[in-house]
């Protein structure tokens, strides 16, 4: 589990991974991962399938134990209450009845708040679903459902938003709207974003920082200095024009 103590001197620092080792059972997926996430930074995690991007997210969320190294999370600013999670897709039982109000409201589990209606209204407004509270979740389009997932994360008023390939299955227009909204959130509310993606163009356009996962190692830093042709060749094993997307899912 991530460490909560001690407090670090940098007030902007939310998350710090140092020589982190991650894996499932006996399999070590990530052997050495070190980087730090500060407020208002937009991190894209890139790499081929099975490189450990989603494993890293699950470890930050406390769903997987750490195999080695340290993962420090700010004890108040980056506690689980202050982390919003947007999964790649929501494995809901399709026959279950639920409204947007109930679905998004479930994001408040684990949070003691007296203003759930205000939070709901604010979260839905951020994702352009205001006024649809009582509509069935199943009546929404794919893009709207993805935005409902983001609203469910935003209702927690997070300082870190963790997104696992949030644009999967979206058409280009919905994808663009979603990413612009996330960028706006980052700037206006100073939320740190950590997003798994295969889209190098998207990372180039929106990320302030990237982490390249490859063969158990992680190369991380500001986008311009990290997303180089040399690093991409090392990760993907071939020359890649980094302004174009790379398909596939983790």
């Amino acid at each position, binding site marked *: 589990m991530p460490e909560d103590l001690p407090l670090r001197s940098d007030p902007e620092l939310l998350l710090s991974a140092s020589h982190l080792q991650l894996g499932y059972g006996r399999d070590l997926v990530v052997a050495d991962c070190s980087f730090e996430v500060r407020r208002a930074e937009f991190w894209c995690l890139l790499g081929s399938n099975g490189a450990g991007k989603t494993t890293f997210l699950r470890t930050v969320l406390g769903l997987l134990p750490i195999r080695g190294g340290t993962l420090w999370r700010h004890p108040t600013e980056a506690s689980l209450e202050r982390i919003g999670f947007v999964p790649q897709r929501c494995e809901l039982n399709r026959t279950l009845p639920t409204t947007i109000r109930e679905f998004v*409201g*479930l994001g408040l*589990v684990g949070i003691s708040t007296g203003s759930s209606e205000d939070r709901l209204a604010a979260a839905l407004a951020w994702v352009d679903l205001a006024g649809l509270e009582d509509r069935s979740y199943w009546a929404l389009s794919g893009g709207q459902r993805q935005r409902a997932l983001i609203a469910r994360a935003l209702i927690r008023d997070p300082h870190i938003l963790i997104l696992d390939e949030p644009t999967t299955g979206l058409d280009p227009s919905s994808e663009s709207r979603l990413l612009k909204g996330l960028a706006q959130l980052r700037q206006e509310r100073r939320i740190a974003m950590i997003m798994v993606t295969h889209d190098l163009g998207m990372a180039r356009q929106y990320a302030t920082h990237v982490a390249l996962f490859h063969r158990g190692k992680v190369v991380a830093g500001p986008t311009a200095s990290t997303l180089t042709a040399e690093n991409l060749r090392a990760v993907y094993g071939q020359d890649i024009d980094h302004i174009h997307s790379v398909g596939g899912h983790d």
Partner: protein
Amino acid sequence: MISAFLSSWPLFHDTYIAGWLIALLLSLVGVAVVARDQIFIGAAVSHASMLGIAVGMWLASWGESMACEWCGSDALLASCGGLFAILGALITSRSGTHATSETHEAVTGWVYVVSASAAILLLSQSPHGLEEVHRLLSSTIIGATNTDVAAFLLLNVVTLVLLAGFLPTIVLLLMDLEMAGAVGVPVSRWQRGIAIWLGLSVGLSMHVSGMLFTFGCLVLPALIAKNLCREVRHMFWVAPLVALGGSTLGFILANYEDFPPGQVVATLLGLGLAMAWLSKAIRRN
């Protein structure tokens, strides 16, 4: 019809009250079963309970030869039924995780087949064994005692207190396990807890009311609620109301027509589900 029912009250009040309490309890637990789309688990756990009761009866016959008075008691049968149902529920709850490589359906099917066959094998040589199996399968709630009433009252109170305190967490667990884990809910502990509660509720209900009433009250009210409600949390209100309404009507009809009450309640709830499907189809169109 009502006055006939009221006049039967002095004789059958424990049966009626136990029936209502079982219906209420199972309808609440059943929401968890239906919401996770694991309806077959109800049948498997019911049969696991039947195996437990068979083991209890086998112990009773063994106890007779050892002059063990407690071995033949009703409490032993109820305990064995509850224990085996809990074990069955725990086994099925572990399937589909990293701990096993088998699917949930496969493990549930295994629990069902092994329990059903082993129960009959265990009792096939016993003088009244197959008669008891038949009683459990066909359901009869006549004969419930005031101890049964007290036990189910306690189970209902605990269930309602848990729901009142943790409803959003429970709804999240039923709808989205990954999200529940991500917000810090101890998912494995909750899963085990729900499995134990399901096993205990089904196991004790099986002993008192038999298979049909137990399985019917477990899944049918929750399925009706699912078709009538717009939100999962509302199912926790509607399912108990349906269960209480269905069982009350069933008891009145059964008393008037001299039918077995468990079968009448199950049939009425089945008809209710057909009407709920129809209502949903009409609303959709």
